[in-house]
């Protein structure tokens, strides 16, 4: 695969990310990267010490609430009370030790999990520091995180379907926006949230087909066709909203999917209220996440999808209908994005507002890259983005002396760092963005 990739890719792009992950020889780039990561881990540890330990007074505690602040089926659990200074010291020293070991020996395959662990330390250190002397409802934060991560994760999963088959989908934002408007309008007209949901999925699927027609049939540059769809979606939804939904609010009141606690599972403390006491759209997202992962890596369809995204000509010589697969996958991707758009209306505030997606489709794209084009990676990245989004709202309440705008920048900065290959490497499907020509 490695050799084929190098041939398929332009020389300009090869520099810096052309070397396949399967390279077993010690190449200087991998060494440099693992060294950078070690230094980064130590820096995180030092940052915990400098910014959090040095500014905390001795003897304080932070109480993390582990029960949701509402009526719930879950069993009650006592609050988690952490002494501030000892916990912070522990997390700082642990991060530094992990970093030193990375520099000295290297964690090898465990590199990713160690990075995740240190990131967890950093966030916990931050929360402990921010909530010192007070109590912080951890479950509340995590609950909101999952809710905010859901549309982002669906956008990212849509990206997985499209980009793994070689089509860049910049239009996720537009698809979500269209689906949101459709679900509100059709849901209100038919007085059925289910019909609203189905209509929005179909509409977003149609936009996916349009993207596929433009990029596969007419071989339009995929970023341009995506941009055109985004502008079209902005225009059409705002037009329909201004013409029908604003003058007549009855057309913008579709109702909302109720929370549907899953028996037994929702009784689990901590996890229950977060994952098993929410609405059906979140369950659908979690189901799709697992489904797409299994489909992509364990079925014939998945193997073919990955093949046409990496080397369509090789796939075609083995008898795969590249064009047809790209059509279906992009249309399916559109529908997944549409589910994300429908969630914004039917799963949270049951009304449509102009431009209500506010860049969530693009954040999903970032999550896709951050998650290295894998379903679970993308979901993890979405959770991080959802978490920073939740935090910046909480920070204002906690009166933390960090402007919330900087928290909001964080996901984008992280994405750029990941994309630049400083920490790990984001490897796009090789044939992404290139129109397929039959030979």
């Amino acid at each position, binding site marked *: 695969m490695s050799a084929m990739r190098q041939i398929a890719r332009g020389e300009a792009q090869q520099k810096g990310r052309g070397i396949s992950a399967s390279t077993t020889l010690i190449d200087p780039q991998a060494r440099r990267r693992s060294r950078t990561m070690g230094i980064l881990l130590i820096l995180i540890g030092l940052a915990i010490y400098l910014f959090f330990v040095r500014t905390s007074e001795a003897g304080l505690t932070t109480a993390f609430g582990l029960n949701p602040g509402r009526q719930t089926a879950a069993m009650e659990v006592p609050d988690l009370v952490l002494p501030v200074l000892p916990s912070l010291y522990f997390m700082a020293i642990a991060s530094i030790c992990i970093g030193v070991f990375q520099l000295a020996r290297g964690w090898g395959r465990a590199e990713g999990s160690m990075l995740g662990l240190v990131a967890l330390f950093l966030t916990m250190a931050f929360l402990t520091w921010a909530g010192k002397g007070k109590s912080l409802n951890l479950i509340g934060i995590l609950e909101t995180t999952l809710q905010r991560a859901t549309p982002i994760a669906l956008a990212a999963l849509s990206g997985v379907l499209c980009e793994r088959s070689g089509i860049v989908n910049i239009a996720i934002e537009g698809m979500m926006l269209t689906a949101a408007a459709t679900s509100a309008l059709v849901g209100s007209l038919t007085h059925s949230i289910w019909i609203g949901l189905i209509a929005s999925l179909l509409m977003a699927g149609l936009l996916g087909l349009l993207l596929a027609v433009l990029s596969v049939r*007419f071989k339009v540059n995929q970023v341009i066709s995506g941009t055109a769809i985004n502008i079209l979606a902005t225009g059409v939804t705002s037009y*329909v909203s201004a013409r029908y939904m604003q003058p007549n609010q009855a057309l913008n009141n579709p109702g909302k999917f109720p929370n549907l606690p899953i028996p037994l599972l929702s009784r689990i403390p901590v996890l229950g209220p977060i994952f098993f006491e929410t609405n059906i759209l979140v369950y659908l997202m979690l189901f799709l996440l697992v489904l797409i992962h299994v489909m992509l890596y364990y079925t014939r369809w998945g193997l073919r999808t990955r093949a046409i995204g990496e080397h369509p000509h090789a796939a075609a010589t083995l008898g795969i209908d590249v064009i047809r697969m790209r059509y279906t996958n992009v249309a399916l991707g559109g529908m997944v994005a549409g589910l994300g758009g429908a969630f914004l209306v039917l799963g949270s505030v049951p009304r449509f507002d102009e431009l209500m997606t506010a860049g969530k489709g693009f954040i999903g794209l970032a999550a896709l890259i951050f998650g290295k084009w894998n379903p679970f990676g993308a979901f993890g990245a979405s959770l991080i983005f959802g978490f920073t989004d939740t935090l910046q709202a909480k920070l204002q309440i906690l009166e933390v002396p960090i402007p919330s705008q900087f928290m909001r*920048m964080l996901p984008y900065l992280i994405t750029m760092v990941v994309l630049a290959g400083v920490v790990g490497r984001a490897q796009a499907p090789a044939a992404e963005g290139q129109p397929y020509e039959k030979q």
Partner: protein
Amino acid sequence: MPELLTSRDTAPPADPDDSSRSHRLWAAIKVPLLAIITALLLSGLLVVVTDTRVYEAFGQSFAAGVRESVRVLLVTYGALFEGSIGNPASMIRALAAWIGGDGSQMSLAFYPLSESLVTATPYILVGLAVALGFRAGMFNIGAEGQYVIGGLASVFVGYSLKGLPTLIHLPLMLLAGVVGGGLWGAIPGLLRATTGAHEVINTIMMNYIAFSLSDWLLNGPMKREGFRPITPEIQPGAVLPSLFPPPIRFHAGFFLALACAALVYWLLFRTTTGFSLRTVGANPHAARYAGINIVGSMVLAMFLSGGLAGLAAATDISGLLRYMPNAFSAGYGFDSIALALLGRSHPVGVVLAALLFGFLRAGASRMQSVARVPVDIISILQAMVIVFIAAPEIIRYIYRLRTDHEAVAREAAL
């Protein structure tokens, strides 16, 4: 990727044969022109089918329905025309009075036209920004963020330096816009050239970083006294001169934008630097083989591209607003891509496209108040134009155009 956009239309080479030249010109503008016409027709159709009065009229009789449809269309496009150019009758009357020595009607009659040119000014600059990037093979989708950063840099120079004469202060403020936007654009360029990270994603990310940064600055360090998140007013020395008395907002920025278009043309097609940029854009392999500095070219292209977007913000602040508000950009990110495509990444084409968009945008607000058609119809129209320009086969198919033999030969050679 962007080589697809530009290689079909290199600048028309100096051709002594006159008829061949006009033929080439027609070949170049045929598709954009038909794309605009088709998009206008289709959005007219959309206006008609979303109008309840039309359905009521069709309920009475077919003829009444057709009459109502035509009436709706005339009102809509009439309002668009009057809003963007003006009422021809009152313009002629004002001109006649002016010749007779009475200039009082002039500003009212020519107000719509001047507003269109005011709207077109930033469009010219952001369109040039994206077009320059396309030519150099860089897809700058982040004109919006560069516009915001350029605005922040220029407004800061505009209000913080005091007591400077216009001759120094104004150029300094505009330059700050160029440098601010340029550096913001150069970062993704550098990342692309050195790490291969794609500039499409990075410019999108940097848009959001720019929005948050501006949100913080305008609510904190750069906020003026009071409640509103806006910057202090710029010093009188940093104001671009207005050319007419008050209700008319037309300012010297329009000519600045035209000068930039000329400059970009000169840079791209008459200098060695421009040649290198275009070579990198058309074929990076060949460029490397020819010894062109690819990293330098990519960074320079993105710096200039971002600089043009930053200059757009600087002229908007210096010529119109005099301060910077929080929600500053008005969808320039996507509009600029449409402009570059419609103008076929050629400075002259971009200026024409920007004038068209300026007229449409300025006219749309009157269309909304008179014909009650939401302004968003303009976005729909723009999207259709992009689709038709990017996929000319659709236009060729609709109008049964014969495929251009030269174009076929050129595409076959690709």
